[in-house]
């Protein structure tokens, strides 16, 4: 098929625009999951919030660069003053709160998760996608979200790193449940839309 320069340019521009829309919509997805009231999970019915699930989904679905861009857009607009953090809070003031470190880690988390997810989708067999994507989400959370969250809490709450670590442990079981659910949903999505994170 011959493709004129004009048509090729139009196709590239359409790809770029869809990428922009993906970044914007996934930033909105993080916001919507942050608003969602805590839901009871498992037979014990422990309530957990879904805020970090959106960040993991951005990395798992869009890959490292677009995922980090979506998380960065969410963070930047929230810090600027849109009421998009959990509890409809917003503005630079959240940097005084205990969640400051967690919020600032989101772009890095999406980047790490996205890098691993991208490698998994390129190399691994589809039947291994769910466990490997779970590892991707868990790695992002262990390497970025929790260390930065602990640092943030020890800074804003005037407690030592050990005490902050103890407070952080509360979030671990919910985090693993969220990573697993996110990996399952993302694997389903990549089977439905194979071109989403194009395997070049």
């Amino acid at each position, binding site marked *: 098929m011959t493709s004129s320069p004009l048509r090729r340019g*139009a196709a590239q*521009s*359409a790809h*770029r*625009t*869809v*990428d*922009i*829309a*993906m*970044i*914007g*919509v*996934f*930033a*909105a*997805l993080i*916001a*919507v999951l942050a*608003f*969602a009231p805590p*839901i*009871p*999970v*498992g*037979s014990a019915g422990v309530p957990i919030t*879904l805020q970090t*699930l959106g960040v993991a989904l951005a990395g798992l679905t869009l890959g490292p660069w677009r995922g980090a*861009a979506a998380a960065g*857009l*969410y963070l930047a*607009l929230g810090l*600027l*003053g*849109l*009421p*998009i953090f959990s*509890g*409809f*809070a*917003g*503005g*630079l*003031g*959240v940097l*005084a*709160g*205990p969640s400051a470190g967690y919020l600032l880690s989101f772009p890095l988390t999406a980047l790490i998760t996205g890098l691993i997810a991208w490698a998994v989708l390129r190399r691994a067999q589809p039947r291994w996608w769910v466990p490997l994507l779970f590892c991707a989400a868990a790695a992002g959370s262990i390497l970025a979200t929790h260390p930065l969250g602990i640092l943030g809490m020890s800074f804003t*709450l*005037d*407690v030592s790193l050990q*005490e902050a670590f103890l*407070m952080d442990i509360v979030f671990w079981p919910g985090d693993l449940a*969220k990573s697993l659910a996110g990996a*399952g*949903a993302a694997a*389903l*999505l990549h089977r*439905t*839309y194979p071109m989403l994170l194009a395997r070049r």
Partner: protein
Amino acid sequence: MSRRRRPRPLRARDQVFGRTAPGNGILHRTPAWAKVAVLAAVTVTVLILRSPTVSLGVVVAVLLLGAAAGVPPVKVLRLLRRIWLLLAAVLAAQLLFNDLAGAGEVLSRIIACLLGAQLLILTTRPHDLLGVFRTLVLPLRWVGLSPGRIALAGLVMLRAIPYLADLAHLAHRQTQARGLEHSIRARTVPLLTGSVDYARDTGRALAARGIDQVRR
């Protein structure tokens, strides 16, 4: 014959951006960039000084300024009711690891910063904030990113939030109907596929109109 069931009232939609306090006071007329700049300065001051007196002073100033601009204090303080769980957790952690004075200092600092931001949120329209955002990301031109495209992504985000909030609510109702309230995955999948569909449709619609950035 069973009687026709009384229709259950629909739950009100989650309000995200309709939270601006109506009015045309002095704060509403101040340009958005000035409010962002003042808020940033106040936040940094409170964070650096870490003194309960200053923090409580900021809280009082915020309430007085809001009242002067026609924003009732109740509207500003409503935020505290939404995040009371977080504040209670902070208080518990402080009493456990620090003393009462430390708890007062940390809590007053958090509340001062959040209430200041709340006043900005209540008196500024989201689209004005996006204009400030586009100006703030102008330096990113030097690393090869287009400020116009970043602002377009921000606009798409503003438009997508109400749609996705409805979708999330619908997904919640669906999981209830299937008895899967406890499954995160059952709740996530429809939201995720809906997001991707919405993004593709939006992207193609924008491309078809030749829009790929927000121009000034």
